[in-house]
């Protein structure tokens, strides 16, 4: 797991080094600092020639300080170290809600919003998926059962963000039932917690609906195939042959054994949805990390993109790590 993290870090480091992107970033920083220093110096030094010389000296000093005189591979360890201790630099274009332009502040402020939206959607869709999946698995060949594969095919091939656009078109533009984006009504000044909560729900509805539609199909399908494949195991057949009541078979044999793979899917789905919701967030202008990513791309904010790529990987890897631990707890057969 940790290897993955290092792998991604080194990979991104090498990529930005080879393509000269890190040079651009660092030279930008140097120029920015020089501009400030030059203004200060201009007050003290009146002679323009002398001023230029002083600035040039400073520039060389900065270049040495940022290792710009060394080749890119000499700088990578430092870049990686900086990212690892979450010293992610400053953003060029975005400010956090509290006015800081440090990348860490901005991201930490937005992470909960993303988690709120994605977790809500994943929870609802997985619950619905579980119930419907189990139901259709117990009635193999019924109409619902036969349509599960169609539903899952649609879910799989549906571009979530496009569905979001259509949902906005219908519900926010045509019917004017829900807001087209954002997380709170601008200008809402009430401090009443219930009103604020309802307002949040009202804004949450469309993005969660979008993610729900995109996720629920595969949920039904996955649950159904897991349950069906376990139904065909020998111990179920033996249980039935012994004459155990169907309820006992279902609760003790079937569900207990389906739990680990279903849980795996749930956590992986959660981790996957956080990265997958980047575009959905951008479409709904949800103040999470996804729309941050989108805006960073639009304004070519390199520091921000680098940091977000890292954070997304981190979230994913942490989810996988939790999964490994849960596996041992849930499934006594797994031992490390």
């Amino acid at each position, binding site marked *: *797991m940790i*290897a*993955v993290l290092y*792998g*991604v870090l080194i990979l*991104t480091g090498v*990529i*930005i080094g080879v*393509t*000269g*992107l890190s040079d*651009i970033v660092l030279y930008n920083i140097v120029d920015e600092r020089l501009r400030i220093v030059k203004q200060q110096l201009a007050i003290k030094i009146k002679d323009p020639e002398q001023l230029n010389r002083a600035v040039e000296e400073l520039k060389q000093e900065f270049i040495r300080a940022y290792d710009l005189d060394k080749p890119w591979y000499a700088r990578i360890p430092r870049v990686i170290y900086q990212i690892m201790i979450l010293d992610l630099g400053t953003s060029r274009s975005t400010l956090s809600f509290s006015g800081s332009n440090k990348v860490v502040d901005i991201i930490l402020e937005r992470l909960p919003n993303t988690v709120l939206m994605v977790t809500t959607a994943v929870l609802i869709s997985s619950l619905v998926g579980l119930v419907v999946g189990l139901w259709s698995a117990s009635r193999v*060949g019924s109409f619902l059962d036969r349509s599960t*594969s*169609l539903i899952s*095919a*649609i879910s*799989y*091939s*549906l*571009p979530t*963000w*496009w*569905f979001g*656009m*259509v949902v*906005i*078109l219908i519900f*926010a*533009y*045509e019917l004017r039932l829900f807001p*087209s984006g954002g997380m709170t009504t601008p200008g809402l000044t009430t401090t009443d917690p219930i009103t604020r909560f309802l307002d949040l729900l009202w804004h949450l509805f469309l993005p969660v609906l979008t993610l729900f539609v995109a996720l629920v199909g595969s949920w039904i399908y996955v649950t159904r*195939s897991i349950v*069906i*494949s376990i139904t*065909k195991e020998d111990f179920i057949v033996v249980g039935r042959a012994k004459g155990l009541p169907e309820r006992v078979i279902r609760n003790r044999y079937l569900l207990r054994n389906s739990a680990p793979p279903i849980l795996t899917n749930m956590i992986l789905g959660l*981790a*996957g949805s956080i*990265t*997958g919701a*980047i*575009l959905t967030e*951008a*479409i709904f202008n949800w103040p999470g990390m996804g729309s941050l*990513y*989108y805006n960073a*791309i*639009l304004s*070519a904010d*390199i520091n921000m*993109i*680098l940091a*977000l*790529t890292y954070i*997304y*990987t981190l*979230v*994913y*890897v942490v989810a*996988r790590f939790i999964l490994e631990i849960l596996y041992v707890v849930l499934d006594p057969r797994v031992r490390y």
Partner: protein
Amino acid sequence: MRKLLRNELLSIFLSSNTSKVGITFLAIMIIASAYVVIFMPLDFGLRYWNNPTFWADYPKLVPPEWVNIFLGDKLLRHTILTAEKPTLSLEDVKQYILTYSHDSDQLPQTVVFKLNNMTFTYTPIIELSVRRPDGRVIDLLVIQPLTSGVSERVDLSGRLEVAVALSRFLKDEFNVSISATEIIQRKLEFKILMGTPVASNGYVDFKTLRGNYMFNIFLRSDDPTARIGSVEVVVFGWCYGFMGTDHLGRDLSQALLYGFPVALLIGVVTSVITAAVGALAGVVSGYYGGIVDEVIQRLCDILNNIPLLPLLIFFMFVIRMNEELRRTISPLAVIIIVLVVFSWAGIAIIVRSMVLSIKAQQFIEASIAVGASSIRVMFKHILPQVAPFIFAQMMFLTPSAILSEAALSLLGLSDPSIPTWGQILESAFANQAMYLGLWWWIVPPGLLIMYSAITFVFIAQGLEPIVEPRLRRV
């Protein structure tokens, strides 16, 4: 025996409705792609799509023509009238007459006269006028082109000379006075040009005249060589074509059609290479075992744990920032490479586990005993056994490649010189199409993305009974 087996598998595959639908969809996609490759220029993106002047004579942001079927008040059709040769040719005057029949209450967005390639020795006088269904004639404008060989594009709306002429026409014929500047400000040009004023409670309103309008172009010159290459009158309507137009007046149906081969190319190339790499790595890893296996599997573990979309975005962003790199390699190629590099691992892991169980079977042992080489065993005996699985995985990879490209297009990170469905959606999103209710700009491209993705999902689902015999319903 082998042929028999293959036929049996084929019939299992074709027995399900899902795979039949999938194959039909695929056939339609291939036909559409073939049509594009044969009949559309391959540099369509650069030469036409990204060239706003090419779309100047198309109405902007209008819905498709077929919406008229569902509407009570019909939308005015977009009409282009052309004449190559003068209708009347006298010694010192050539007259071009273009007849336009108007049978709608709706007025055009604007009317544009195009005088292409005017050649002469002395400057001629060109007069534009219109004869209305009620027999009244309005002299609109006089043009004197200065240099030979140029083309002139005259947009009647917002042009002061035209407004002055219309104002005078109103005064003379109906004794209604509206100043020229007011005409331009209130955009009354076509209400006057194509209507009669009626008084409605102290306010002047206009009633649209239906019938034949004759647009006349007189070329007056003593010079016998003076001529206009061709004349065109474009009446800008409120609907266009099969799929409507976007903010630049671009005909969406063309780009939607062009998207077929692009999507097919991205999907198929990515999935074929990924499946090939994954299968090879899996077979080698499973067959040789030991250190080779260990290295490949650890690599797979790492690759399998990386979230693809953020990395893809990162890579594409790097490409976009680096001019030099962008010139040498197309962003589309980068998308394909990144997708291959980060998706083969999933296949390799499963193929390896399948190979392990196949390797333990006796016929493998037998063929090794007879002296078959490793290569022969791997490709002749093991690979055919895992082939259906690899094929099914390939079908599942195709839609994810198509969807990834669309997603990157939305972020503006794809290849701008090749129009794709995702890029249409990107420009729709960037131009507020959702808030303006421009459904024809949003719905069709997404449906096509979904269509092309679901085609392969259906085929993959049809393959499932072959890959997983337990799911067969006999």
